[in-house]
């Protein structure tokens, strides 16, 4: 800039400032004369006698809040049963808790009737329940009942509408006015108002419904579920689309919408206004009038141009490339868009006033979505622009977590519904909102194990605590000898030599009784023998004797030194949610046979750490025994192998992370294959192929391959460095 120009600019600036200053004052004066008094803020007065004011209630009245003339608590609760029914149902008044006290939380599904076709989605819901650990085929022991009548689509114009539901359910001897029943519904009401009407009397049944409105939602009783399509996978489910975390969000668009514009009828208010925020640059809001048969009848002047613009953009492309996605109400409050946006990590901007958001009892949507108001549509662009980039990043990640934890499959949606109801049965043994909204999510947190975040492997950092400083060694003995072999004696010596070892547990799974206590080696730490039931899944049973956070799982043949144990444990304390151990395998996709396989050969990757020598958190014993369905454990017990792979698959499914391999002095890999071969030819190879099958079966059950590969191994900092051995903390790990 030249000096002269600068002067001109400056003079201009100065005069402008002065003008603003005086002029502004003039304006203020004008306002002063025309209306309000220009005086200081008129605050609430400081009364001179404020210290003499009386309390709002007499202190004694506050502390003695009883009235003997009132109903007794028991009578009052009995009276609720008759007063608070149907639309005023609550768990206290419409649910029979006593049914759940006897056998715990068991769910019964009505037997399916042959002449009664059910929709694909409802079939999936029933299958989810029947596969779950809560299922019971016996109505006597059930706490919750699910109808076999398809109630998902209650729009009587729909082809899947089931008629005469009232008559049918009243014929069921178990119906009992709907008490302890759970009814699923995705669509209710019909043109033109799409009300919440289901076309039959649900009585005292709990309603799990999509597009729930806050007015008819019975808080603490009903469950709002998301709308999902019939193609929604039964289990597993697709992953979210977020593959990188960038700040600021590196997306082409800020805010997008592409959908129908209703010209008349319910929901048209919002849909008709959406085009106003379209700016053609970073905000794309496209609407079309084309829907239904007679759209041209209601056609307005915008329609033709809108329809042209509409075709220019691809919905999928918009989903992939936008930071925020508008999820407006359709005819009903919820839409498929909601889950689509969630999966796409496109932060949902909800314009659906009065929608009770899915699983709102558990999920804190303020961390994953922008809840807008239909009435304030025009403020949305500036509101989302003002959201800080790091908050956008947190939002994006939360959408992915929620999608993966609660929504990506029918199994997850159904299980979340069941867990929410289960949590109500014993409020003191239920998940806090923190547990629901933090990785890995409520379904993987068993309140029966603990309700304290510090007891789980996932929350140490958020909770500001750290895992316990000792571990429990857990040795499984199966050898038929009945006496103690040399390897096991050496193992006990090595493990008990670790400064971090709190105790040794021996799981004795032989037919012969364990040797008397005198035969066991003398150790500095307590040694306890547990009699096993000779089942393989026993080794992951949550024994109460395990009191430390860390478990060192060992086989009797394992050979480890004290240094190895010490170093591995120190590493585990940095990664308490993972399996940290020695011998490793890696899985691979076998394109020829079209299935998953794994290898114990030397590879540059690993995805499984054998539990023959591994540290992990004791919570995984609970997950293994209580979270996995009995069928999987039976599979493992039946094959008499593969329990370690199941454990690895489970932990990977929970953490989405690979296990960690640490330095091992003696290569376990040399010994393992020999053992397999050693068990003589045919039997050995059969066992191997069974193990291969097993991985395939596990993947089938989980619905995807949870294992994650890693290319690294953790060694001590100075491992094999050219430094004096005296300087090294773990010199023994380097001995050949």
């Amino acid at each position, binding site marked *: 800039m030249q000096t002269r120009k600068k002067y001109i600019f400056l003079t201009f600036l100065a005069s402008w400032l002065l003008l603003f200053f005086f002029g502004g004052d003039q304006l203020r004066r004008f306002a002063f004369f025309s209306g309000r008094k220009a005086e200081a803020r008129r*605050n609430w007065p400081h009364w001179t006698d404020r210290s003499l004011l009386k309390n709002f209630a007499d202190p004694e009245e506050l502390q003695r*809040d009883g*009235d003997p003339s009132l109903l007794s608590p028991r009578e009052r609760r009995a009276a609720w049963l008759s007063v608070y029914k149907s639309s005023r149902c609550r768990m206290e008044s419409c649910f029979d808790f006593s049914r759940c006290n006897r056998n715990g939380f068991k769910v019964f599904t009505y037997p399916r009737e042959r002449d009664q076709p059910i929709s694909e989605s409802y079939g999936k819901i029933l299958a989810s329940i029947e596969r779950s650990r809560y299922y019971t085929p016996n109505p006597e022991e059930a706490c919750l009942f699910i109808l076999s009548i398809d109630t998902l689509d209650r729009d009587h114009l729909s082809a899947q509408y089931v008629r005469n539901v009232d008559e049918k359910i009243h014929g069921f001897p178990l119906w009992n006015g709907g008490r302890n029943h759970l009814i699923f519904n995705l669509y209710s009401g019909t043109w033109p108002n799409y009300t919440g009407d289901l076309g039959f009397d649900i009585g005292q049944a709990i309603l799990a419904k999509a597009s729930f409105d806050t007015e008819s939602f019975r808080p603490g009783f009903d469950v709002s579920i998301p709308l999902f399509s019939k193609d929604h996978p039964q289990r597993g489910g697709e992953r979210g689309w977020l593959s990188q975390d960038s700040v600021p969000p590196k997306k082409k668009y800020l805010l997008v919408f592409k959908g129908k514009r209703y010209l008349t009828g319910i929901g048209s208010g919002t849909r008709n206004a959406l085009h106003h925020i379209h700016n053609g640059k970073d905000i794309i809001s496209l609407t079309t009038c084309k829907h239904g048969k007679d759209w041209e009848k209601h056609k307005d002047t915008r329609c033709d141009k809108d329809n042209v613009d509409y075709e220019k953009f691809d919905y999928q492309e918009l989903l992939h490339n936008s930071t925020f996605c508008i999820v407006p109400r359709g005819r009903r409050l919820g839409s498929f868009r909601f889950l689509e946006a969630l999966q796409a990590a496109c932060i949902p901007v909800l314009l659906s006033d009065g929608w009770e958001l899915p699983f709102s009892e558990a999920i804190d949507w303020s961390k994953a979505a922008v*809840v807008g108001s239909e009435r304030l549509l025009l403020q949305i662009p500036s*509101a989302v622009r003002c959201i800080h980039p790091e908050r956008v990043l947190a939002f994006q990640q939360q959408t992915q977590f929620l999608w993966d934890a609660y929504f990506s499959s029918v199994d997850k949606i159904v299980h979340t519904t069941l867990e929410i109801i289960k949590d109500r049965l014993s409020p*003191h043994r239920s998940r806090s909102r923190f547990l629901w909204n933090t*990785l890995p999510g409520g379904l993987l947190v068993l309140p029966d194990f603990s309700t304290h975040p510090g007891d789980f492997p996932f929350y140490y950092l958020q909770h500001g605590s750290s895992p316990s400083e000792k571990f429990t060694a857990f040795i499984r003995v199966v050898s038929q000898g009945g006496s103690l072999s040399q390897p096991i004696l050496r193992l006990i010596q090595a493990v008990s030599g670790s400064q971090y070892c709190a105790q040794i547990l021996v799981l004795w799974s032989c037919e012969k009784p364990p040797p008397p206590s005198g035969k066991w080696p003398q150790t500095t730490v307590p040694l306890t023998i547990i009699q096993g039931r000779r089942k393989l899944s026993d080794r992951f049973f949550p024994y109460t004797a395990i009191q430390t956070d860390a478990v060192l799982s060992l086989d009797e043949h394992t050979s480890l030194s004290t240094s190895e144990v010490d*170093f591995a444990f120190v590493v585990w304390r940095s990664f308490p949610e993972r399996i940290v151990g020695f011998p490793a395998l890696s899985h691979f996709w076998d394109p020829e046979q079209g299935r998953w396989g794994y290898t114990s050969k030397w590879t540059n*990757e690993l995805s499984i750490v054998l539990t023959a020598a591994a540290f992990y958190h004791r919570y995984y014993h609970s997950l293994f025994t209580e979270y996995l369905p009995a069928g999987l454990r039976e599979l493992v017990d039946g094959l008499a192998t593969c329990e370690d792979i199941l454990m690895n698959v489970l932990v990977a499914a929970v953490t989405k992370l690979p296990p960690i391999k640490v330095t091992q002095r003696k290569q376990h890999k040399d010994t393992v294959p020999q053992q397999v071969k050693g068990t003589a030819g045919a039997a050995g190879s059969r066992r191997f192929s069974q193990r291969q099958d097993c991985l395939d079966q596990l993947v089938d059950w989980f619905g995807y391959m949870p294992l994650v590969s890693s290319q690294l191994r953790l060694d001590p900092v100075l491992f094999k460095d050219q430094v004096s051995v005296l300087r090294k903390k773990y010199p023994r790990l380097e001995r050949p």
Partner: protein
Amino acid sequence: IMCASTKYNTRGPALIPRMKTKHRIYYITLFSIVLLGLIATGMFQFWPHSIESSSDWTVEKRSVHDVPVVKLPADSPIPERGDLSCRMHTCFDVYRCGFNPKNKIKVYIYSLKKYVDEFGTAVSNTISREYNELLTAISDSEFYTDDVNRACLFVPSIDVLNQNVLRIKETAQALAQLSRWDRGTNHLLFNMLPGGPPDYNTALDVPRDRALLAGGGFSTWTYRQGYDVSIPVYSPLSAEVDLPERGPGPRRYFILSSQMALHPEYQSELEALQAENGESVLILDKCTNLSDGVPAVRKRCYKNQVFDYPQVLQESTFCVVLRGARLGQAVLSDVLQAGCVPVIIADSYILPFSEVLDWKRASVVIPEEKMPEMYSILQSIPQRQIEEMQRQARWFWEAYFRSMKAIALATLQIINDRIYPYAAISYEEWNDPPAVKWSSVSNPLFLPLIPPQSQGFTAVVLTYDRVESLFRVITEVSKVPSLSKLLVVWNNQNKNPPEDSLWPKIRVPLKVVRTAENKLSNRFFPYDEIETEAVLAIDDDIIMLTSDELQFGYEVWREFPDRLVGYPGRLHLWDHEMNKWKYESEWTNEVSMVLTGAAFYHKYFNYLYTYKMPGDIKNWVDAHMNCEDIAMNFLVANVTGKSVIKVTPRKKFKCPECTAIDGLSLDQTHMVERSECINKFASVFGTMPLKVVEHRADPVLYKDDFPEKLKSFPNIGSL
């Protein structure tokens, strides 16, 4: 409206023009003159106003008794009863609240009046002490406005905290004649004691049409979720009694009940518990034989023993809070104050501020039917959790129960959060006690994502004038398969970078960014040119890293994308003699830092370093031209709570023609300076975030007896 927050400079320091000194002087002089003029006029303009306003205060010095009297005719309108179907989107007028950059609602308080019926009898008592405190708190808060036209929420000065002292119909009439009543739209009423004999309704019986109700003692049937606000019943003992917070640890009693006039049925259930479990259960009741003058509310008795209330609550681990005639009980506040974990037995009760507070962390809710199992239920709670609940209970009291101000502000904040949900206060801010906020970390990259390998990384080389060495680094780094771009940050303002033709020809794009000032923080600027998540920061003299080592480093980073993954490791130690932190670069068995002379990390941390570095660290580093790497280590460890990952074996970071990191590190003054950095940063962060670990990452088959050519990363560890 622009959001300043998102408008950070994405173009980098390279484009800041430097003015010539001569012109700068002109500018400064001119500006000072203008500024002085403005200030002078400003003083002149505004002085009289401030005198005026201070005189206003004298006017407000009056008694609650000399306020205008309003006569309510007998036939003056009565509002409709409360509408149970009201929700924010149906009964609340959001247009009154508008969009404002502060995201704060404006609250208006009607001035105090005295209402009399047509016979001249007062409709209610004068305003209570608590309601006056509440209105004072609102008036002093950021929410307050005295301009009725700008208000979004209206708070009547008619005191309805206690329904028992109200004349219901006349109070309703008084509400209806408020100037902006409009069917109660956007009006907020505070009520703590609802209902009355014989049926004890759980919500205020005064007809109030669409008004929002902040009520104590809602039941699930009267509470309009997302519309009403459930508030505590204030206990005046909060102000009267000072109970110092008691540390965790066992207390004398396990369960204590301190309420008077309990229903005989509850009483007998409690006695059964006591009979079963003996002395650990203490059931207190009213004292019958107190001498005159002792306030009954401050004493409790068990048989002949007399206890001070509420002090006795501190002697117990759990304190029972049973419903009385009403659901909300003032004792809940006393119990929380004592840091006793409330055991809430009141079916259908909506707990105070349940919309935002996670009561599962501070209380145990037991269904009335399960009262006989109470002891075993409470016994099953682990000690650690009990201690946290005690701390949490106390924190709830301090933050949301202790005064009418706390109650009023929490209520307004809840309503504010509904109107500006995108600016709402988070779960953690509502629920985490300060101690937890301090000790816990919330990792900004919390999702376990393994970034796709195809993305590659961007190498950022900070250089000043070592062109020859720089070119060697560029050539070496360009051999790494996953390199996707090379960015040279030219930090020398006195010299131009070499001509394009002189640069090494490499297979990936090479960009040169020129900086405006020779600052170390330029290395950590989130340049737009960095398009990958992974950044490799590398000095212009690090030529000794092999391609395998760098590629492996990138693979390790992919598995730990929220950490610093680097080559030379360093350690911090506590120097017991000097009583301060010490920097250590010797060959140790532990690491807590990696040097950013060669390290992979997420681009997000560039953003954090540039815009969110605490205190004056960033400027301090630029001024001292040192320790930018230590600062980065602190920043990442503090925000993630995780350790660094050192990759690959130790190697000599030395080259003949340059002063490498190691060479420099040996310098004694350098070491002292680095130690000072650690101490300085630890004091700014208020904690020592660095984590010490004993491991480093090597390829799975490193040093294993296996053919080298079959290994993914054979060339690792060569010196």
